[in-house]
């Protein structure tokens, strides 16, 4: 194929995915899709293998490929033009039940030539808890509607009986309908544009370009791997839930042009819904791999070929039915993301050529908090606090992490405006801001996470309730690199208003401690936000890079002045003395010398 035609077809495939994402957002009405960008659209070849990975949550790219393959197996000989299939069973391919895949065959001149697939986190899936994350679910059976594959649209016509059956099992069916229709619209656009592409260039020519594109990705990725040092890197993640702690252990081995991710030694599957299936783990490790190692390579099946995953059956990263998995995306999957990000960051850091692309772990700990209840307009609302997507950047080998800088597994994640949340729910924000000391200290500091506080406001029922799947308030999860500290852990606090009727101060000054009332830590389950109580959340910062006591003292001074680092941490961790807002160089030198002396007095590990 001539290179010009190849490049044009490749570019058109990119644009098809982009346009499909835009369509999805235009039709969807939920904050989690439009504000948080908890979505994904990709194209797949006729056999279901990944052709063109799109943006959104990247751990879905490979799982949706498995969804396509599963539909091909299940409906062999009965797949027709205009069909759209729904799949959300985690033990077949999906990550958890509330992330529904709609996969659509693409035909040209009567022949199946490709697939498009997309997902959104639907408004509700009928699990024991509203919103899809179900911390109270003991098994998959209580995590809502689940299908290993069902035809939702037949030959372009909605199967109303199937749709009605699904909607009969969920809360807020009108919003779930909108979610499903947004995905149908998305797939329709992708199918239409793919068909146009094939009409213009010919199906055989396009398929040839697709095959070449996959091979090109494999060749480029293998070449990159050969440039990187051979070795073995380890990472470990702790997930704390209700007092229990589970480990995800990873040893990543790179040899020549192959990468092996070995999760042996990870803990057995948990009684809590933080587990994930093997398809989810595979997606979880690719989510950081795509952007960190293949930022200039098309994300497709070719990138998968040099990679092997070992995930022991029955473990938290390859659980067996009927283990609960509804919190997987912010549980074990995210820990797989983090562990892979850490080992890849270490490998890049060992490379002369790629060391400046090394990064500490970004926003490692989502806090899934779904508010639900009667809103100020008398209707029912369910919705996630999209601040969980706001994230924080990990420090690089040459620069600080980006404050509230998003996350690696979703390059387009973001959070809703405060006003958007207040318009949909009977709540008011007391404050939302960057959280001091949340970024992992280092020569280059991890980006700060944030903190917020909510109170009920004009709630017809006196407030609302919320489902919280908040692991990670015990163990830091955003690991640092090369001596950098981890980002601070999350914190979830229920502030119970004082009995004497004192008003809750509506001010950002002082943060959590300025809110009147007694503080009770919460993390897992369903809780009320009623009366004059407040909910405080702090989310983790990114990991730091390098030794904190070699950080430029002037940078520490700026951090303190901006409220990103406290005076206490400036002295205790960075060894920087500030006087009247300026660096006291003499005292700083003495402080750092004292820290070094104390370090050398420690016992050797041998």
């Amino acid at each position, binding site marked *: 194929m001539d290179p010009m035609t190849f490049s044009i077809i490749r570019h058109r495939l990119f644009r098809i995915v982009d346009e499909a994402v835009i369509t999805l957002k235009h039709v969807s009405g939920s904050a989690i899709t439009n504000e948080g960008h908890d979505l994904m659209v990709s194209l797949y070849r006729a056999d279901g293998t990944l052709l063109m990975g799109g943006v959104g949550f990247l751990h879905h790219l490979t799982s949706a490929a498995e969804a396509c393959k599963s539909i091909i197996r299940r409906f062999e000989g009965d797949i027709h033009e205009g069909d759209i299939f729904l799949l959300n069973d985690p033990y077949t391919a999906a990550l958890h039940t509330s992330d529904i895949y709609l996969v659509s065959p693409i035909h040209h001149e009567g022949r199946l030539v490709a697939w498009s697939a997309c997902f959104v986190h639907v408004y509700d899936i009928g699990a024991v808890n509203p919103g899809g994350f179900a911390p109270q679910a003991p098994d998959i059976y209580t995590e809502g509607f689940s299908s290993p594959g069902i035809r939702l649209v037949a030959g372009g016509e909605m199967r109303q009986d199937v749709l009605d059956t699904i909607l009969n099992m969920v809360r807020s069916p009108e919003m779930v309908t909108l979610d499903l229709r947004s995905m149908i619209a998305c797939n329709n656009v992708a199918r239409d544009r793919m068909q146009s592409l094939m009409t213009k260039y010919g199906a055989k020519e396009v398929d040839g370009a697709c095959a070449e594109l996959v091979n090109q990705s494999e060749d480029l990725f293998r070449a990159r791997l050969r440039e990187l*040092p*051979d*070795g*073995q*890197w*380890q*990472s*470990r993640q*702790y997930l*704390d839930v209700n007092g229990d702690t589970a*480990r995800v252990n990873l040893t990543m081995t790179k040899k020549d042009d192959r990468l092996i991710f070995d999760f042996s030694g990870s803990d057995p599957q948990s009684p809590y819904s933080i587990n994930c299936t093997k398809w989810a783990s595979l997606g979880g490790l690719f989510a950081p791999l795509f952007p960190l190692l293949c930022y200039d390579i098309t994300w497709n099946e070719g990138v998968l070929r040099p990679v092997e995953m070992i995930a022991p059956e029955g473990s938290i990263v390859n659980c067996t039915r009927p283990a609960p998995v509804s919190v997987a995306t912010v549980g074990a999957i995210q820990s797989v993301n983090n562990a892979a990000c850490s080992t890849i960051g*270490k490998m890049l*850091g*060992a490379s*002369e050529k790629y*060391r400046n692309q*090394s990064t500490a772990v970004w926003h490692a700990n989502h806090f899934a908090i779904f508010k639900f209840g009667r809103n100020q307009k008398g209707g029912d609302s369910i919705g996630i606090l999209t601040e969980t997507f706001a994230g924080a950047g990990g420090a690089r*080998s040459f620069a600080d992490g980006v404050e509230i800088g998003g996350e690696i597994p979703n390059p387009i994640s973001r959070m809703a405006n405060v006003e958007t949340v207040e318009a949909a729910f009977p709540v008011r924000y007391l404050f939302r801001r960057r*959280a*001091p*000391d*949340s970024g992992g*200290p280092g020569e280059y500091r991890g980006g700060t996470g944030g903190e917020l506080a909510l109170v009920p406001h004009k709630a017809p029922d006196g407030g609302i309730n919320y489902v919280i799947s908040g692991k990670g*308030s*015990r*163990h*830091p*999860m955003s*690991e*640092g*690199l*090369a*001596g*950098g*500290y*981890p980002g*601070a*852990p999350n*914190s979830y606090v229920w502030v119970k208003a004082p009995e004497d009727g004192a008003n809750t101060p509506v001010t950002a000054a002082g943060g959590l401690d300025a809110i009147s009332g007694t503080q009770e830590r919460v993390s897992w389950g369903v809780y009320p936000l009623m009366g004059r109580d407040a909910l405080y959340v*702090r989310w983790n910062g990114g990991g730091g*890079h*390098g*030794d904190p*006591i*070699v950080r430029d003292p002037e940078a520490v001074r700026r951090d303190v002045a901006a409220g990103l*680092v*406290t005076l*206490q*941490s400036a002295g*205790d*961790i960075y060894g920087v003395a500030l006087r009247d807002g300026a660096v006291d160089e003499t005292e700083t030198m003495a402080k750092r010398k004292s820290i*070094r*002396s104390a*370090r*050398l007095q*420690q*016992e*050797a*590990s*041998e």
Partner: protein
Amino acid sequence: MSGQDRISASVAVKEGQAVCAACGHDLGPATKPWKDHAHRREIPLALAGGQAYDTGHEGVLLRHFYCPGCAALLDTETAMAGDPALDDILAARG
């Protein structure tokens, strides 16, 4: 180890040996866990500095690995008591 000059930003490789990038202190063969040759300090996370690490939970540790020569902080790990150190090693090359 030909052509490989470091394990991380803080641990370099010189003639097949892991060395402190700041002072050159020998940390053993680069194909073996260098942390065995570093000073190791374990502190409760709550004492790591600043209020943000004070989660109110016990049993969470922050490990520091220091260069015995110059006291540079070479690596950190979050850990629970008794968990092994994380080992990062380079493969021997011909």
